[in-house]
């Protein structure tokens, strides 16, 4: 199923915003990521055609930005800031705890496809370090219990809804 079939309206909305359509590349990549969980090769090809650019350019943009994934990732992205202020407040140990709890390394995805953990640079909430960003939500002043609780909650939420990926 092509993106244009499922998200035509959104795509047209973004295309209409720019005088040069290649400028719409980032919102379109987000749409693809929302749709498939990550940006597939086919989606890149489709976006290249929609924007009349070479697929090499689309791949370059996906590769440049950390928030685009060209491989399957978890439903929940756990971004743990390990920059200086957070590190001073124990973010490294915190990250290690979260990883141990999930049984993965930073950058990896749990086998059930629910969580991906990434250690990231400053996300702008130093005054409430350590912080963890879950998809687009911030969780501040984190500690190990809060993290455990959050992970359980999210697991329950996934089970309550449809499986994220059919495979």
């Amino acid at each position, binding site marked *: 199923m092509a993106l244009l079939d499922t998200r035509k309206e959104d795509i047209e909305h973004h295309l209409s915003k720019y005088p040069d359509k290649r400028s719409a590349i980032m919102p379109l990549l987000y749409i693809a990521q929302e749709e498939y969980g990550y940006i597939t090769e086919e989606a890149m090809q489709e976006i290249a055609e929609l924007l009349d650019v070479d697929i*090499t350019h689309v791949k370059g943009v996906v*590769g440049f930005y950390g928030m685009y994934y060209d491989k399957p990732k978890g439903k929940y992205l756990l971004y743990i800031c390990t920059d200086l202020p957070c590190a001073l407040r124990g973010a490294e140990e915190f990250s290690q705890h979260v990883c141990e709890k999930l049984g993965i390394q930073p950058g990896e995805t749990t086998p059930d496809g629910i969580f991906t953990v990434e250690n990231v640079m400053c996300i702008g909430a130093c005054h409430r370090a350590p912080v963890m960003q879950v998809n687009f939500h911030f969780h501040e002043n984190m500690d190990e219990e809060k993290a455990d609780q959050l992970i359980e909650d999210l697991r329950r939420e996934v089970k309550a809804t449809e499986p994220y990926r059919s495979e």
Partner: protein
Amino acid sequence: MADTVKITIDDIEYEVPAGMNLVDAAKLCGVDIPVFCYHPKLGYAGNCRMCLVELGTPRRNRETGEMELAWFPRLQTACTQTVVDGMSIRTRSEKVRDGRRIILELLLSSHPLDCPICDKGGECPLQNLTMEHGPETSRMYWEDKMHLGKHIPLGELIYLDQERCIHCARCIRFQRLVADDPVLGFDQRGRRQRIITSSTPPFDSIFSGNTTDICPVGALTTADFRFNARPWEMVQVATICSHTPEGSNMYFDTRPDREAGGRTTIKRVMPRQNEQVNEIWLSDKSRFVHHYMEHPDRLTRPLIRKGGKLVEATWEEALEEIARQLQAAEAEVAGIAGGRLSNEDFFAFQKLIRGQGSNNLAAYPARVAGAEFVAQVGVGVGTNFLDVGEGDAILVVASDLHEEAPIWWLRVKAAAERGATLIVLNGRETRLDKFATHRIRYAYGEEVATLNAMLGSLDDEHIQPEREVEGLEETLRHARGFEASPELAAAAKAFAGAENAILIVGGEGVGAETSHNLAQAASNLLIATGHVGRPNNGLIIVWGAANSQGAFDMGIHHRYGPGYQPVEQPGLDYAGIIAALKSNDLKALYIAGADPVFDDWLMEEALRATNAYIIVQDMFLTQTADLADVVLPTQSIAEKEGTYTSGERRVQRFYQAIEPIGESKADREIFLTLAQKLGHGEARTVAGLIFNQDIAGAVPQYAGITYQALARVEKQFPDVGGEDLYYGGTSYPNRHGLGVQWPVAAEDESAGLVVRPAEAGSRLTATDSALVVVPVTVLYDAEPVMQKTQLLRQRVPAPYAALNPADAARLGIEAGDMLEITSDGHAIRVMAVLDETAPRGAAIVPRRLQAQGAPLAAVVAPVVRLERIGA
């Protein structure tokens, strides 16, 4: 604005052209500002930071109101600056030297420093600039170097070493800005940043080799030259591309090779700068096809047919036999010469055939004609596409320049980007359309009618012949009988009103007759609008071979002798030769450097049927040679010297690079030995003497040109190579001659100009079961020399016909189906490809993807789907 401005470099004042880039301006003043990412042909990117200088610009002091020089507190990148009056820079201060040293230390922080095994070692800007400006040691930890992939193929031709890359983006910008194949890009960022290509096939560009020249490090190398030789071991031998008509200047880099038993071999082909011809670029075909020259299949000894088989013979035996046959044949001989021969070869060839009393001469390929119009109104001496821009016009008719003449495509496209009005007339969409101001589609068969209609649509205000023209009234009356659409009339007006106008005539879909008429119509339009006799005005014909222009100049023509002087008794043309072979009205046929059987089933039929004695002279045992009575082994361009004449009529020299293969001889030597045996004159076989004495004496247009003058060079800008490796890339400066253009008749202002009504064909129309089958030229074809080059052979597609999806649906054809197309009783088999750009009712069939694989000219022919395999 003044044309020049004054700038100060290191306390010395210079006057430089206004609006120039600061790095270029400094270069012009003899001051080298080191760069990696900046390139004079690509403009600036400002991402390597190597060109840091101290910069001062004039600014008004707010307190005193006086102008004063204000120095930027920090170092600035010179490449992002345009010179302004009063600008001052320092390029040698302590601060600048510090800046350069630190930039190099950073660029080298993850560089593998594998210069001893790097192809670029010895001609590497990074190596050179590090020696000159860099730190002696690095403060970085060796263990912390970033390790990335090496030996990554970006396609079959180009390899990437990610560790060596310094992210200057020259290759990416070349592909985007110059080649319009934006198939390279960056992936990732920071220390992981790397070059990628995702096109299908990978690195899909016919100009990919150029990226290795402009790469300032060893990141991009060619599959051809990888680990093959060191730059300093090689000797450069100047040569000319012998495959397409632009006359690209190049060097063979040669070296004695152990694997070749100590023979000198060609290690690589590099561009030789000629800003009037190919600048510093080469197509991949020019660069990589040379392997056939040293291929083991090369003929090494003469072959004579004995008992139905070709068997090896001595030269003496073969030449005696040929002389005897030619003597017996007297004037009943004909000659066909291919466009890879040199001017000296052609001259000797026509001397031999005309010595027999025959004017039966044809240049091959014979499908493009009209050289006599070039002799009258060809582009003026001094024409340079680089000078064409705003206010000028270029009209391209019946050509896919990208495939027929890639370097012209680059230069025409660039002229359009500089503001020239580009008019493209074709039956289908080509890659030039994107840059065109006027895109006109004609129906196949109406090529000439379209040009006539353009002329007919012009009102008196635009008819400005500037001098007496014979036949103008009649021609205009005739042209007004053709109807022009409003779009076509607008294009005609733009063409006529342009300051300078060049008309390029190609060979797409047309055969010899239409091609001739097209040149007539083009010539009429140029003369009537006054676009002749001046630089950047006039006619260019896209010939089917590298030296077709030279063939006609030397008189390889049934109606014209050397220098376009009409012969008293016109001979047979190519079609006439075929007819005469069949009717046995010829006793001997001499084919040199051409393989007509590969293209033309009519020729095969004639050669099989005839009793005539067939002499074939070639490098390989071609399909034509296979039908010969005697085959003579001849030399490639690498084994001899001589001259070629480009499609812009630039006569250029090439030099001997390697020893002859086997017993092969230069074409001219063979012809002249025979001519002497037959008593047609003495055999003067030295190329320079033939050029300076025989050709100069017989071809008036060449009379003022000497062999020595062709070797003259002058300083070109931007200067490349030499000390300036980092500036222009590794393409070589031209040390062996820029060539000389010969003047056409129109350049003599007292010369009369003649126009005549151009006979127009009629529209070809598809029927229920038949399509208009249009032969087109592709760069990567399957001609024998391409077959011998492993590297390029992989890009040659299987024979195909491109159909519009609507026609395919109508005829029940799907992509991938095998089709049979029959015309003139000959059937070809091609694979169906569905292509939106193919016009309705047409089947676009590339020439030379297989033997006899396309009709000679556009024709209405039934297209039948063969049973699907497994259906």
